[in-house]
Structures are given as C-alpha cells and as structure tokens.
C-alpha cells in the first residue's frame, strides 16, 4: 500500500532529449492509474524511474512521502510486469515465483504457502514445474503477474503487459487484471499505448505526449472533456474528428463556422464572446456524434462525400470528405485535414461517392484553438463535472 508522488520529474538524455519533462502526478493509495500515450511519449521512462531502473534527472519521486530518488531498485518494494515478461528462463514457474521471496529471505514454509496461494489465484498450479519456454504467451503473462504479486509489493508497475498477446486473450486478461487489482487493492501504475486498455482499466488515466502530461482524470471525464486536440484525437477508436474551420463570427451565445466553404451556425449558452476565439480554430466532433439526416436548412448540417466504407459488424465506419465533387479538397496546414470518420449503424446503406448530410448538435461539438493546444469553448462548463471514483 502506498501513495506515490511525482514532483516536477524530468528525464534528460544527452542530446539533449527531454524524455520526461516536468511531470507532476499524485497517485492515491490503492489507485489504478493508467499512463497512456503514443510511443516515445515518456510513459515507460516515468515508471522505470519510479522502479529505480532509470535515474531521475530532476524533480522528486516519493513513495509514502519518502523520496526514493536515491534508492536502488531492490530497496523500493515495487514490482514490475515487463512487456516481454522477463521470466528467468532457467527456472521453473515455481522457481520464478519463489525468486523474489528467496531474495527477501522469506522462511521456506511461508514462501511455499505464498506460492501456492498465488498459483491458485492465477491458475498456475498445473504448470508450476514447467519452464517458461514450455508455456504459452498467456501463461507466461500470468507467471509474470504472479511473480509481481507473490511478495506483496507496495506498488505494481505494468509496462505494456498485454502487448505480446493476441486480441482475444488481451480482452480476457484485461478484465482479469482489473478484478485482481480491485481485489488486492495495491497501488498500480499501468503503461499502455492502447486507449481501449486505458479507458477500461484505470480509476484515472494520464495522457502523455512528448514527455509532458496532457490531462489526468477519470476515463469518462478525459473522454468527455478533453483538455486539448491531442487528447481528443488520441482517445476513442477512431479518435475525435478535428476539422480546421474559420470562425466567421462568434457573438455571445452564437458561433458561426466556415468549413471548407460550408457555413455552420450554432446557438448555445456556453459559447463565450468572440474575442476568445481566433479567426481559425479546430472543430472537434466524435465519430459517433455524426448522425445522418435528411437535408434541412434549419439545423446545423454538414454535407460530406462518402470516400470509403468499412463494415465492422454491427456498425460501419464512413470515411468522409467535406469537398463536393465541384470543389476538390485542398491540403490544409498542420496535421489536421478535412477527412472525417463517422460511425454509422450497419442498417444505413452507404454508397461510395455519394453525398450525405450529418446533423451536429451544439452539445456534441468541441472547439479547439487553431494550434490544438487548448479547448476554447467548454460547452459543458455548466454541467457538474463527473465524480471521481
């Protein structure tokens, strides 16, 4: 059991590369925090620093208000599940489970009982005498978990523990990990690049990019109220559509946008006065918030051309472009384009090349500043924020 604090923690590599850049996070005792971000965002470096496998360039990491910056890994009482599991190849499963106990000089009888208990918990009893090379990927994963659990560490660290498993097994073990953590109540930090794992596992998720924290909060809140365009685009599968738009006018309670020649007007009490928005911005809308409608000039609607359709079972992903056949799409600045993805029930017939209209509710849109750095209109500001679990 432990509370963890990262206080302005940085990791510099010669170059100079800032792998982790002034990260501050407070993790409560017993909390399950998921660090999520694209590869190279510093999430693994962060937990490796907590484990003592990497030195801390600046800042303080503390476990239960005690700085661990200068403690070697063997004195930190953290346990890690590695991406490749790092099982000792010359030891049996029992030997692997026994190793951390042996290193801590646990009395043999107690160690045996503990191993049996963990083996029972993780269904490892039938394979205790096998060696790692004789195990399947899922079994190795469970042994790695067992080795971490067996000595009751203060903190569990998991570095992409599911990335070497096939999709079906991943879903199953994901659920197992969640229930295990709930049962043991051990503070857990879980690193992943998979936003589905992040959304489903953690009490809170921490989205990182280029060594810096973008947003921390319960999964629902981060999904519903992304702090910036990066978080919005990263979470969700597919992520939020981010369409460059020109703000034609932004009077109080009214916003008029220009999207590649189409004009959209919204009325909402959450829309602030015009001086908060630059002349250009990003319109964010989730794929599931785009609902096909009949053409109607009364409500804000987007006219799109269907470029491709992907059928995925009960629903389909329509790849759309704002360009009409008369007006070809033009490349836009930055990494944002006018390509849009909509999630539509499979019952709707979609035809490649044809035009389609989508309704946009003012509640379902997000406006980000042109550089994507900040959300400039918080139309949910009036709602009460979701309660943290």
């Amino acid at each position: 059991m432990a509370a963890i604090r990262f206080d302005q923690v940085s990791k510099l590599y010669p170059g100079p590369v800032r792998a982790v850049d002034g990260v501050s996070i407070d993790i409560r005792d017993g909390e399950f925090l998921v660090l999520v971000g694209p590869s190279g965002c510093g999430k693994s470096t962060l937990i490796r620093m907590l484990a003592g496998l990497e030195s801390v360039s600046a800042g303080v990491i503390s476990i239960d208000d005690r700085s661990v910056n200068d403690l070697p890994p063997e004195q930190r009482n953290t346990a890690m599940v590695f991406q490749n599991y790092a099982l000792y190849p010359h030891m049996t499963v029992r030997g692997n489970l026994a190793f951390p106990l042996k290193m801590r000089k646990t009395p043999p009888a107690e160690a045996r009982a503990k191993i049996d208990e963990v083996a029972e918990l993780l269904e490892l009893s039938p394979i205790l005498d096998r060696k790692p090379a004789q195990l399947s990927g899922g079994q190795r994963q469970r042994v790695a978990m067992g080795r971490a659990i067996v000595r009751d560490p203060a903190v569990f660290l998991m570095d992409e523990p599911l990335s070497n498993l096939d999709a079906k097994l991943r879903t199953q073990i994901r659920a197992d990990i969640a229930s295990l953590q709930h049962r043991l109540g051990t503070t857990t930090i879980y690193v992943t690049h998979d936003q589905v794992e992040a959304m489903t596992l953690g009490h809170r998720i921490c989205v990182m990019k280029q060594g810096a924290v973008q947003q921390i909060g319960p999964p629902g809140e981060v999904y519903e109220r992304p702090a910036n365009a990066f978080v919005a685009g990263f979470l969700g599968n597919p992520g939020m559509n981010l369409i460059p738009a020109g703000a034609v006018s932004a009077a109080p309670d009214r916003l008029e946008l220009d999207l590649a020649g189409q004009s959209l007007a919204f009325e909402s009490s959450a829309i602030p006065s015009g001086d908060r928005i630059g002349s250009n911005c990003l319109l964010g809308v989730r794929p599931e918030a785009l609902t096909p409608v009949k053409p109607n000039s009364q409500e804000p609607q987007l006219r799109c051309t269907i470029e491709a359709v992907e059928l995925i079972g009960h629903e389909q992903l329509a790849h759309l472009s704002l360009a009409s056949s008369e007006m070809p799409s033009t490349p836009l600045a930055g990494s944002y384009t006018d390509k849009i993805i909509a999630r539509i029930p499979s019952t709707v017939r979609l035809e490649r090349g044809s035009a389609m209209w989508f309704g946009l509710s003012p509640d379902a849109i997000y406006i980000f500043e042109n550089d994507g750095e900040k959300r400039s209109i918080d139309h949910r500001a009036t709602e009460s924020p979701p309660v943290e679990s």
Partner: protein
Amino acid sequence: MKKWSTAAIGMALPALIGLGLFVVLPFLLAIGLSFTNARLGSPLGIQFVGLREYVYVLSDATFWRALGNNCLFAALIVPGQTALALGLALLLNQPLRGMVVFRTLFFMPVIFPIALVSVVWILIFAPGPEGMLNGFLGWLSGGAWQPRDFLNDPTWALPAVVLTSIWQGAGFQMVVLLAGLQSIDPALHEAAAMDGAGRFRRFLHVTLPGLRNPLIFVTIVTTILSFRIFDQVRIMTNGGPKGATTTVVYEIVQAAFDRAQLSRGAAMAVLFFVLVLGLTLIQRRVFKQHGAVNR
C-alpha cells in the same frame, strides 16, 4: 531422410576432400604406422610388430610424466583462463566509452602467433635482476625478491608456461563470453533487481545461468587446447628442466622427428587421441545432464 542432391554433394565435396586428405587419411596412416616398426628415413623395410609400440609407450615413464604435466596444464589453464576471460568480459560489458579500444587490446594476444608470444614472455621471464618480471617483483617487494631463472627452475617453469598460455588464450574466450553476456535480456537483470537481488546475486542467478552454454563451450575448447599444448613448450623450455614442462604432443614430436621413431610417435598420437576424445565425451555428457536449457 532427404535424398542428397547432386548440387549439395558438389558443394560439400571440396571440404570433404580436404578433410579426408589432411585429417582422416593422416590419422588412418598413423593408426597403421603405430602397429609397425617404421622409422623416419630408414632404408630398412617396414614390419608389422603388433602392439609392441603401445606396450613400450605405456610402460615409459616419460610418457606418463608428459601426460601428468598435461593434466596439470589443463587443471591450471582451464579454470584460470575461463575466470580471467569472464572477468574481462564482465568489465567490457559495462556501458562505458572507449570499450572498443579495450576489447581490441584484450583480444590482440589471440592474433599474435604463439611463437611471438613465447619469445616476448621469454624476455619477461629473463633471469637475473635485469629480467622484467624479476625486476618488477624486486621493486614491488622493496628488494626482498631473489631473482630467479623462471624457465630453468623445475618449480617455476610450468607455471611460467601456464601464465603465457593463459595470457595468449584468454582473449578468445573473452569474446565468446562477451557475446553470451550481450545476449542476456537486460530486462532479466532489471526484474531480478526489482525482485530484491543485489549485484552479486544478480550475477549468480541471472548472468551465470545465462552464460551456461558459452561457458560449456569455452571449458571444452580450453580443455582440448590445453592438452594440445606444444609450441610454448618447444620454444620456451624444450620440455625441461628435467621434463618439468614436457607434454604428450611434445613427446610425440620428439619421438617422431627428433629420434625418427615414427611408429612410436604414431602410437602415442593414437593413445592421446582416444584419451582426449574420451575426456571431451565425458565433459559433454556431464554438462548435458545438468539442466536442459530450452532457449
């Protein structure tokens, strides 16, 4: 079993011919000669004498002395050289700058011909206070060291040859062990550290088991090489003083070429071959039984 294609045989043929011509044929000839009274350059005809040469060799004290020395060489060189090679490999595996330079330096003796190495060490072991080692030991002990003639001292000659051999051979084993060290997943060391193992126990529980196969290879090869020892002995001590450094291979060469007793040399060679082969088979059997590593 798959049928051998003509192309496969064609490609293997040059190597097979070489093996047959330079390894199998001479060895068969040696077996044949060992049952005769053949002498080098003798005008007399060759006669079949049965096991006479074997009986002679096995009752010859010099042969047993040489074999004893061989065992002594192996007993000193195998652990000494392996330990030194492992130490060097561990040092070179540190993530520090300039390791390539040290790796090259430590490997260099392997490239030097043993004849050159022997001459260099003769200079190092030179007698009298001007000798390098004598001078160094004198300086180290503040003058208390009595200079001695290492290579002509029955007590010191064999250790001196052993030292030369280790110095020359360790680089090769170092490279093999270094490659082994670098193939150990670094995450295993990290996992062991987090499991509570300090530096020494990580070495014991991660490094050593990870080096099992390279260590077996190194041990077997060093054993064979230390039994084959000849060049150093020939150049540095000529088997002396008083047979203190003679080896079986040295005795074989002495018999066959210096004393022209071709058949006696052949008999010794056959006996020696059987001995080393047996030893190697035993080693392999022992190492194989202790834990099958599946990776």
